[in-house]
């Protein structure tokens, strides 16, 4: 029974962490892009 409980909690955090890592990577890429644009 506990297997399902831990699977649900783990799935919740995997989904949130995956989304946060996408947002964070996008932020770093955009910062870099903006800096390059301002340089040129």
């Amino acid at each position: 029974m506990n297997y399902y409980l831990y699977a649900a909690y783990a799935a919740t955090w995997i989904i949130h962490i995956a989304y946060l890592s996408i947002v964070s990577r996008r932020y770093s890429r955009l910062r870099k892009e903006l800096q390059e644009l301002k340089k040129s």
Partner: protein
Amino acid sequence: MKRAFPILAVLTAVLLSYALYQALEVAPTEATMGDVQRIFYYHVPSAWTAFLLFLTNFVASVIYLIRRNTKADILALVTAEVGVVFCTVVLVTGPIWARPVWGIWWTWDLRLTLTLVLWLIYVSYLMLRRFSSSGQTPLMAAVLAVFGALDVPLVYFSIWYFRTQHPSPVIGGGGSLDPRMARVLLINWAAFLCFAALVCWSRYRVERLQREVEETQALEALMESRSIR
């Protein structure tokens, strides 16, 4: 404002840890389902948070339709995206909970089907915003959001007015939740609300940056075309 973000992040981390401890250790074990019922403390607050985000999306979309306000447009996009993430959590944790309790992963019951439709509506909304290159995209998205939001009360009240496989409402609607469980549920909801606010804030900053990059690129292209002439 720059200092508020790390403070909110630390507070959210503390609150989420406390909420997890309450859900796993403090909340009483449910008599019929046992420990697996503790999925409730993640499943229900995620659903409520998703509903609140979709309602914010609706309000922001209406404001955009009336005033053509850029901030409202960004808020609508951000709340739809974070709402889809929370709705995904609901659609994943629900079947994991259903399997040991109902003996099945999924059933085409009214509540479950309407939740899946809600998720599909907002995924379509995000697809429209991502792949449409028309200048009217924010306007079309706002109209879609207004109609999409109609599904939120349908999902919420489906278990009040129809007999479904899904359990009856736990708070209001004749639900009889143990006060200790209700307390843990509300702590978890508060933690998820803080977390959602933090994620929306981060995503809002990314969207502002994205628009700044696009404006700079457009300006550069304009200057280049003038220098060619």
